[in-house]
């Protein structure tokens, strides 16, 4: 009877919303009136209805285990909520890997230093205080490192101080101890090592010229570069694990 005013067929969107009872009142009534008069639209509606019924009949899926959160999962970082939607960061693994990598770098550095001391130091490296000469060398290189990575000095210092303890946030070494000091060439450092590196805490001494290292040059050059690279790597890795560890314990 009223079909005359509704002879345009209903589109899928209308039919779909009609099924869900999501059409506003007047539209719903108009659609109902059209459906009452139009077999083709009724057929469409039934087809959609069976699709909906099929989707609804899909079996429920149950998680194979409880997805309840453990305290460990929850503990890491609250620091960057911006990244909350990103995949879970695995701090334990990262920190562990960084620490391992720094340990390796430190060991390599130590090995290089021993070789160097054998080549150049001619017995002076035999100082009873084994840590002294690495420390002195470290300070020289970490001065450069200090320019590039601000965090380097303190970690580099920790390296020389206690080879195996990288505990982040340990604060066992006053930052900057070795930083601006002991730019002596390696030969000197090896000689005066223990004496000069230890009280290295002096701050902000004007950086003395460093050409002696170059004068020393040639054969030791590559070795020195390797040491420097290794020291930089160690410092960087330590800094990274420090930061990562911090984040984790937060």
């Amino acid at each position, binding site marked *: 009877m009223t079909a005359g005013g509704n002879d345009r067929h209903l589109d*899928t*969107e209308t*039919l*779909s*919303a009609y099924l*869900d009872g*999501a059409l506003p009142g007047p539209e719903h009534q108009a659609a109902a009136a059209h459906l009452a008069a139009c077999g083709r639209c009724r057929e469409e509606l039934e*087809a*959609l209805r*069976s*699709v*909906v*019924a*099929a*989707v*609804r*009949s*899909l*079996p*429920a*899926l*149950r*998680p*194979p*285990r*409880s*997805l*309840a*959160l453990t*305290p460990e*999962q*929850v503990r890491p970082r*609250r620091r960057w*909520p911006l990244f*909350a*939607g*990103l*995949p*879970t960061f695995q701090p334990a693994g990262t920190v562990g890997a960084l620490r391992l990598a720094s340990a390796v770098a430190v060991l390599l550095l130590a090995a290089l230093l021993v070789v160097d001391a054998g080549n150049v130091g001619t017995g002076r490296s035999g100082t009873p205080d084994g840590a002294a000469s690495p420390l002195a060398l470290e300070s020289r290189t970490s001065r450069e490192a200090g320019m590039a990575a601000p965090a380097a000095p303190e970690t580099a210092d920790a390296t020389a101080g206690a080879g195996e303890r990288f505990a982040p946030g340990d604060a066992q070494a006053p930052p900057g101890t070795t930083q601006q000091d002991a730019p002596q060439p390696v030969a000197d450092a090896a000689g005066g090592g223990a004496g000069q590196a230890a009280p290295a805490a002096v701050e902000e001494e004007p950086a003395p010229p460093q050409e002696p290292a170059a004068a020393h040059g040639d054969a030791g050059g590559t070795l020195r570069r390797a040491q420097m690279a290794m020291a930089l790597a160690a410092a960087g890795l330590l800094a990274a694990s420090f930061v990562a560890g911090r984040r984790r314990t937060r």
Partner: protein
Amino acid sequence: MERSRKGDLEAFNLLVEAYQGQVYALCVRMLGSREAGEDAAQDAFLSAFRGIGRYRGGSFRAWLLRIAANACYDALRRRQRRPAGSLDALLDDPDGPLTLTDPGETPEEHALRRELARELEAALADLPPEERLAVLLCDVQGLAYHEIGQALGVPLGTVKSRIARGRARLRERLSSRPELLRGLRRQEG
């Protein structure tokens, strides 16, 4: 809920227990794989816990499913393409729900239902993700349109059209197997 918002993990885990089935089901179907779905669901709950301070009332389920949907989109983006066979793994899982028999169901009906579910899961997997998500939220999760709009952060009109387009595509796809839908209708009737 109040305690959860203050970071009480035990309280939050009660919410996890209540919603994990829905979140998991959505993620599995969005990603077409149980493993990926489980990972995404876990990520979603973690994000929800961390972001619960930003839940501002309204439908908690819709809020949670929105986070789950985002976790799924992240996973899809990371993967770009669904590895072949993962859907089959879902459907052929011998411990899966598809092998459960309804009491009073004949073997033929069971086979038909299984077949329909397989076709449908495959058809769903082929939908564009936004349409798949809208259809799942509407017809599997049973959310109302306004809740879906809230969950997806889109206006009602968009919700309506995504659902309609998704359903139309499914219908197209299933129309090659009319006997499956007939079986379903008989079952319901």
